[in-house]
Structure formats: C-alpha cells, structure tokens
C-alpha cells in the first residue's frame, strides 16, 4: 500500500479498503466503470487499482469531453479558424488535440488567430474588443460546462454582441451511459458516477441504470477516500442484490441538481437528434445544439461548416479504449507512435484521458486472477 500514508485520512482509507476486500466475493469478477475522466485521473494518480482485490476491475468510461470529440468536429472548427477574419478561441485542453490536418496549436503556427481562453466569458470579451472581427468560441464539455456557455450566449444576446459565434460541441452523459450499457461487448456490474456533472443534473437521471439495467451506481467525489467509498457502496449493493442510485458526494451534489443551471440549458439549447462520439459512434439525443432563439450566435447556422465525418487513424484503437474493451497499454500505438508529446488520439492529450494518465503514472497491468470466477449476470433489455 505504497500511497496510503500520503492520503489525508490513512486510517479511513485502510478501513474502507479492508471492507472492500471483505465485501468483494472472491468467487465473482467485478467490472465497475468510473464514468468521469477526473476520476480516471485520480485513480491512476493515487495508484488505487493496486490497492483493490484482483477480482475488482475499474473500467475507464467516456467522461472526458476532449477524448470523445470526433476528429471531424475538430476539423470543422479549424476550418473556421482558417478564415483571416476569425479569432478562434478554445480552452487550453483543446490546443493539442489532433484534427486530421493538425491541432489548433499547429493552425496557429500556420498563421490562424487561435487564442486560449479560460472561460467562455473571455471569448465574449474578445468579441467586444474586436468588433470588426468574428470571434468563434469552440464550446465543449458535458453538463458541467454547458451552463457556462448558455449564460455567455444569454449575455451576448442581451448586449447585442453580433460578431460572437459559438461552435457547439456540448454532449450529455446519460445517453452515453445508456449506449455503453446496450453495447454487446460491454459487461459492467456497476458505476462510479460523475461528480461535477451531477452538481448540475443531480442524481435522478441515473435512476434508469438501477431500475432498467439492475446496475448499482454511486455518485462520487474525487478524493481517494471518496472513490474507494463509492466503490464500496457499489460492491455492497452487488453483494446484497440491490440496485439503486447512491450519492456519496452529497456534501457537494444536491439530489435534484442545480435547477438554475438546468433552466439556462433549456433557454439556450435543444437536444440534437444524434451526435457522433469517438469510439461509441452515433448516439441518439446525446448532444446539445443552439436553439432558434439564439441562431444568430450559432456558428453552425451562420457560418460555412462542412460537417464531414473523419475516421480516426487506422492503427489507433481509441474507440476500444474509450469503451473500456481495451486497456490503454493494449493499443498497438500506446507509448510508441502515440505519446503525450506526439499524441495521435485525444486520450493521450487530456489529463483526464485514460492513455495520458496510464502513460504518466505507468500502472502495472491488472492480472486477471486464475481459477474459476463467475461473471455476475448482466441483464440487458
């Protein structure tokens, strides 16, 4: 237990770990998905996998917005950036994400006006300071960041900033979880639910996971103790045959979510009929687009966007890693052609990406224990 003593509360961690080892049935094999990329990062950083029983596997989920963005959307964004009248703004995380013709950083090197912003409000400010230029904000993120984009658009409308456009790539987590549960090559027994997304959407939207798929889920904080406690909650449910939504992170996540944030989403966005996710393909109703009330600020309605679909590089297996079918080190390119310095796939770029975390913290591959183990039955509809 090499990391335990550096944790805030080693006594609590040891106690939780002991309970995990006691509750996990040695005759069963458990596959628990942590949905959120922030959890993935923490799990690698703190070496939590090495503390768990051999028959408890943590599967990394799709909760890294940079990682699930298909390459075609990056290309579309950089097409806009190529216009000399355009100032292209995006979060720093996006700067090294490869499109088929290079990353935003490489576009900048070729002369495009690409700027890092830390908030969509910064992009709006740049638009107000440059009335003769068109400022495009490349909006990305789950329900955690979407309300910020919504409030920014409401301000743009209120202030009449007409040279500001948003290229909207916001996605929603629930349809992605459903797609994973419906995927025939996935066999999951439970979920560690995302923390910050849940501060917006609350815990109620996860109820279908328990009700329809009989999978336990615990919404979790980001401390090592939080993640281990959430895992224990899920394992206890599995042991007792229960399936319900639990809120381990209730000191931050209200059960009902943030109603003001949900209202701003409803004011500005509507659900797309379908949206492409890297690795998961097209998922119905899984993303947001700007509604007609805000059409004047929607880059997709007011600017020329090709909207073509671009396949990932053939040898890269980002899709399989994203779905949890392959571990990062099982990809043929991992650590060879694809490294954080020269990323081929987005999972190697973002700190929340499973590949970057795996590369940085170099975890020993989990060995599936030998002997006969029973997979828990997974009910699919």
């Amino acid at each position, binding site marked *: 237990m090499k990391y335990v003593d550096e944790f805030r509360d080693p006594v609590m961690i040891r106690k939780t770990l002991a309970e995990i080892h006691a509750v996990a049935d040695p005759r069963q094999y458990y596959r628990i998905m942590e949905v959120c990329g922030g959890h993935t990062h923490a799990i690698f950083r703190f070496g939590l996998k090495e503390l768990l029983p051999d028959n408890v596997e943590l599967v990394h989920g799709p909760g890294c917005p940079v990682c699930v963005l298909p390459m075609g959307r990056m290309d579309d964004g950089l097409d806009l950036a190529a216009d000399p009248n355009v100032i292209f703004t995006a979060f720093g995380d996006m700067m090294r994400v490869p499109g088929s013709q290079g990353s935003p950083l490489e576009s900048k090197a070729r002369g495009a006006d690409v700027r890092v912003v830390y908030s969509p409000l*910064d992009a709006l400010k740049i638009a*107000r300071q440059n009335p003769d230029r068109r400022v495009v904000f490349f909006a990305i993120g789950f329900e955690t960041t979407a309300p910020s984009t919504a409030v920014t658009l409401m301000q743009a409308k209120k202030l009449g900033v007409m040279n500001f456009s948003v290229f909207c790539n916001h996605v929603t987590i629930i349809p992605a979880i459903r797609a994973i549960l419906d995927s025939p090559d996935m066999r999951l027994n439970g979920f560690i639910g995302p923390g910050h997304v849940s501060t917006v959407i609350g815990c109620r939207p996860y109820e279908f996971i328990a009700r329809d798929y009989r999978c336990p889920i615990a919404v979790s904080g980001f401390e090592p103790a939080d993640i281990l406690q959430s895992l224990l909650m899920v394992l206890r449910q599995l042991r007792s045959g229960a399936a319900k939504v639990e809120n381990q992170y209730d000191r931050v996540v209200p059960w009902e979510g943030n109603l003001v944030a949900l209202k*701003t989403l409803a004011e500005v966005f509507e659900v797309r009929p379908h949206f492409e996710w890297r690795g998961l393909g097209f998922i119905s109703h899984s993303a947001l687009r700007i509604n007609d009330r805000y059409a004047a600020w929607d880059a997709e309605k007011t600017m020329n966007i090709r909207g073509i679909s671009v396949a990932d590089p053939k040898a890269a297996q980002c899709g399989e890693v994203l779905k949890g079918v392959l571990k990062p080190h099982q990809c043929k390119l991992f650590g060879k052609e694809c490294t954080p310095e020269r990323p081929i796939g987005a999972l190697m770029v973002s700190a929340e990406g499973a590949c970057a975390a795996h590369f940085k913290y170099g975890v020993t591959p989990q060995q599936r224990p030998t002997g006969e183990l029973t997979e828990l039955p997974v009910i699919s509809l």
Partner: protein
Amino acid sequence: MCLAIPAQIIEVANDDSLATVDILGVRRKVNVDLLSDDPPQLGEWVLVHVGFAMNKISAERAAEQIELLSMLGEATAALEEADGYDFAAPHVSPFAETEEQPLAADDSRPRSDR
C-alpha cells in the same frame, strides 16, 4: 476544463452578476448567475468552473479541494486558469499585480496541454 477551483467571496455581485473572489490567492471576478437561487454571501466558498461559480461549499471542503488539486498535480494548471479569467470590465485590476501564493505542489508534471 474539468477543474473545479474553490474560491472565497470577497465582494458580492452587483447587477453585473460578477462577484469578486479570492481564488488560489489571486483576486478575480467570477460569474454567479448559476447560483441566483441562493446567491453566495461575503466570506462564503464556492466551486468555480470555467469562470462560473457552480455550487457553494464549506470552508473545510474548500481546503480539502485545494489540497486535492495539488495532490493531483493540477495546482499550477488551476492557478493558471484562475489567473487567466479576464472577462471583468476592460480595466486592469489593481489586484492583478498582487503577489500570488503558489500552492505547495508537487507539480513537476508538464502541463503543455493547457
């Protein structure tokens, strides 16, 4: 982008929805529209996400979150993000030159992605 950074309210928001906060030792404005049901008061703590206060937290919880950021090697990135918020009125904040208090962080990790 997925960082949540704790900040303490130093001055409550006026009509512009911007509250002044101390965020990792830097004074910045953050938008509080998403907390309009229960606006944060002087001295209260909030979690900030891309320039927006997303929820209120306890002082104890805020201290834990700051420690977590540094343990995750994200303290420098968080400080850079907080420092980067630049959407308040187009004047230079008199506090912009304030000595920043870097976190005691093990942040040797290269953060070229931010």
